[in-house]
């Protein structure tokens, strides 16, 4: 019983419709939070007593880094679900997430380098965290390359899901790399929620940014998800054809117009 409900919820047309409806609910809060975070981070927060104004890069760097890790985790979980329950929508989520994750990984690398120059005197260091983040970027590229290498979407979905699941071990490695190996990179500062090391005037904009970035990811993911679901829709249509319901060609046509 519960399963039929679950599958109906996860059925492509349903997801397509719901995703379309949900998008603004993510997009607008994201926009507001991002603007608030920008004002807070660039204007209201005081300069750091050590780093001066350079530390303001944190407000884009840390949330990007968070997304780079979170998106990969989302991909791995979605891939796992898709593999186990043969759920096309889960695969569509993974496929939609990958390019977003890759782009924010790149943003992390670039903003980190830009921060590194004034702080460490060099754009790049072969430090464990930086290197493992670079490898995460390669992993994203590999994931997308593997996807692109298959013509058959179903197969691409399932093969790349295996990679996503296997590759997820890299996420904790990156996260704990600062702890495990002595690193130049900043240790966890916000993540220990119990004992914030920053004054609230600095911390609050950062938290706002984290939330804003996450919602932004949600909005873009939903948009891409609709496209991915459409690309996988062929079989769903003929299923309803076989059942003999509404001539689904027309029905999907309406959906597309919507």
């Amino acid at each position: 019983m519960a399963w039929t409900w679950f599958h109906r919820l996860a059925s492509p047309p349903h997801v397509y419709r719901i995703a379309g409806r949900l998008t603004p609910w993510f997009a607008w809060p994201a926009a507001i939070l991002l603007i608030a975070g920008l004002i807070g981070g660039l204007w209201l927060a005081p300069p750091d007593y050590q780093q001066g104004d350079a530390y303001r890069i944190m407000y884009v760097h840390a949330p990007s880094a968070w997304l780079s890790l979170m998106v990969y985790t989302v991909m791995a979980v979605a891939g796992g679900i898709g593999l186990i329950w043969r759920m096309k929508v889960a695969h569509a989520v993974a496929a939609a997430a990958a390019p977003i994750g890759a782009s924010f990984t790149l943003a992390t690398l670039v903003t980190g380098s830009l921060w590194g120059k004034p702080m460490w005197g060099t754009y790049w260091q072969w430090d464990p965290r930086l290197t493992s983040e670079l490898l995460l970027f390669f992993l994203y590229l590999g994931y997308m390359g593997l996807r692109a290498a298959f013509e058959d979407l179903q197969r691409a979905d399932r093969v790349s899901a295996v990679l996503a699941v296997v590759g997820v071990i890299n996420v904790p490695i990156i996260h704990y790399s600062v702890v495990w190996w002595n690193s130049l990179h900043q240790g966890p500062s916000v993540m220990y929620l119990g004992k914030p090391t920053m004054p609230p005037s600095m911390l609050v904009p950062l938290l706002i940014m984290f939330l804003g970035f996450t919602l932004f990811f949600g909005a873009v993911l939903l948009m891409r998800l609709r496209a991915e679901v459409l690309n996988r829709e062929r079989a769903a249509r003929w299923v309803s054809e076989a059942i003999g319901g509404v001539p689904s060609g027309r029905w999907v046509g309406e959906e597309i117009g919507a």
Partner: protein
Amino acid sequence: MQAALPSTGLERGSAPSALAVARLMLERDLRLAFRKASQLVQPLAFFAMVTTLFPLAITPELSRLRHIASGVLWAAALLASLLALEFLFRDDAQDGTLEQYALSGRALTGLLSAKTAAHWLLTGLPLALVAPIAAVALGVPGRALPGILASVTLGTVTLSLLGAIGAALTLGVRRAGALLSLLTLPLAIPVLIFGAHATQLAIRGKPYGAPLTLLAALAVFGMTLAPLAAAAAVRINLE
């Protein structure tokens, strides 16, 4: 297996045990490799050549070579295993024999584990045996050799297992060479870090037990999970 249903009387002979099947696969892969004896020498020769490159390209001074020895050894080991990997499943997929194994009704995990074991015996083990020699050539002191032997042995096990996953993932892809590297290298980084760390400690004469334990842990972890992932990927790719 629907034993309750009437048999057609055509099914003669009992199914061999999972272990016997694995042994058969191992034997097959080794025989295929030995049929071309030159193949056996190849990973070694490759390894030797890469180790030779660096003194040529950088500096012939042993005192400086020693510092980079661990990096050179591990990079060479990684690349040599990768090179051999491409062929781990590809040949079998191309001539249709892998399809037959997937249709044999036997668990693919066992078959693939056996193939991975064969791969390690044919590349990892020889590499581990040659690594100390290469190390000496790079000016590493003799007392470091046991540590190097141990770390390369353990490390190549994990590299073979990771490679099995990568090779299985790219089965359906033509010219997968570089895609395979792209997929496998990020996964191989922990092995590389711990391996090189152990090697460096050994060269400096310090205790290298901790990274070695981690290498062993990675190998065990890989042995339990990699065949599952590889079998899943192969099944998907044969679909």
